[in-house]
């Protein structure tokens, strides 16, 4: 199922007229259980506002008087509105009831994919297309205005922040990365200097990895042919990749899963051509303006 355009089921914890309030501890456990399962939960009370209603399916949970959930529906017919009594339910049973409705309403299913993808800071981006020409997995593209855009975020390799390191302006963030400025922390002058001195990961991924691997495996082959130990050859390959990975902070699994050198070369050419087309269009736009 494609990642896009799926909405999250909105669960409302209702504690107003016609329902008994939850103990603070129960409220916390219920909230935590639902959030850990990926749902959005709104706690309504007479103190403060919450986000307005939209067309998202709504499941209203409450300890309703007499243990009977009201039978209501949205007068406009636009919102799928359901009520569930949770008197005597523990948090697991609540989560089960919510999951049942999620499946019925076709709302987004959570937890199948770790949300790891680049986020562009357009206050910093200069539309230079380095990221587009670097990424071998087609994560980047451009919009109608020829502006760089993240288009296929689920193609991104989990835990790999390599493209953020090729960006000359530190404009690419991975909010779940461990350190700044890639995690969204403020970009300092020192960060920009550091970025300038970075290793050329592009070259590393584009060819050197394979050159090194071939060289290593040739040497290893002659040794291992004597030992007849294929496992050792694999270990050697892994050791080599781990070393390379640490130079660019690229997870070894990402390097291990790279396509063949020929395929890499093909994809790199394709990405470069795409970037060049965009840059040429930008220049044409500038000169005809």
């Amino acid at each position, binding site marked *: 199922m494609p990642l896009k355009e799926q909405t*999250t089921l909105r669960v409302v914890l209702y504690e107003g007229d016609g329902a008994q309030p939850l103990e603070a501890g129960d409220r916390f456990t219920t909230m935590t259980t639902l*959030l850990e399962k990926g749902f*959005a939960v709104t706690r309504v009370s007479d103190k403060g506002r*919450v986000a307005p209603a939209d067309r998202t399916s709504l499941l209203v949970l409450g300890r309703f008087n007499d243990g009977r959930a009201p039978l209501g529906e949205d007068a406009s017919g636009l919102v799928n509105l359901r009520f569930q009594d949770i008197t005597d339910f523990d948090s697991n049973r609540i989560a089960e009831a919510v999951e049942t409705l999620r499946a019925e309403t076709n709302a987004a299913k959570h937890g199948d994919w770790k949300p790891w993808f680049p986020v562009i800071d357009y206050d910093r981006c200069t539309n230079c297309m380095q990221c587009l020409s670097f990424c071998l997995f087609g994560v980047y593209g451009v919009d109608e205005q020829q502006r760089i855009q993240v288009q296929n975020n689920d193609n991104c390799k989990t835990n790999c922040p390599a493209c953020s390191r090729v960006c000359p*302006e530190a404009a690419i963030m991975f*909010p*779940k990365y461990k350190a700044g400025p890639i995690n*969204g922390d403020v970009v300092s002058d020192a960060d920009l200097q550091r970025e300038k001195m970075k290793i050329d990961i592009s070259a590393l991924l584009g060819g050197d990895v394979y050159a090194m691997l071939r060289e290593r495996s040739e040497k290893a082959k002659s040794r291992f042919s004597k030992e007849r130990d294929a496992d050792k050859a694999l270990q050697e390959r892994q050791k080599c990749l781990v070393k390379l990975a640490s130079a660019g902070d690229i997870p070894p699994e990402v390097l291990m899963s790279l396509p063949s050198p020929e395929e890499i070369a093909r994809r790199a050419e394709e990405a470069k051509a795409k970037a060049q087309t965009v840059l040429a269009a930008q220049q044409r736009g500038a000169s005809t303006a």
Partner: protein
Amino acid sequence: MTTPPRILYCNCTYAQVVPKEVKEAVLKKLCESGVAFDAVADLCEMSARLDPALKRLADGGAVKIAACYPRAVKWLFHAAKAPLPIEAAEILNMRVQSADEVANALFSAELQPNLPTGKATKPSAVELPKSEVAA
């Protein structure tokens, strides 16, 4: 009278980048208080899915968001075509602030907008008005 800001809490469910004790303590304080609030599992995941729910969360006027770095939160909403109101959004950063700091700011009636604003680098050709590109 101006309406008080809404509260949005992000649980950062799919990563361990927000200290567990901080996010738990903030959620606990919210649950113990009488205030209404919205909570989401993971703003990153919603942004990746271009979840239309982000629009509702961005659109309801002034908002305080307990999540992570303001720069990240700003562009996550933007990526999902649901930009936050620059002048009416305050982000509390559970990666670096203590639970008490975050909770105090959430419960305070005063809003201190802190989303980064304005171009930090030279505008690119696509961002300039056509007349300036030609000049």
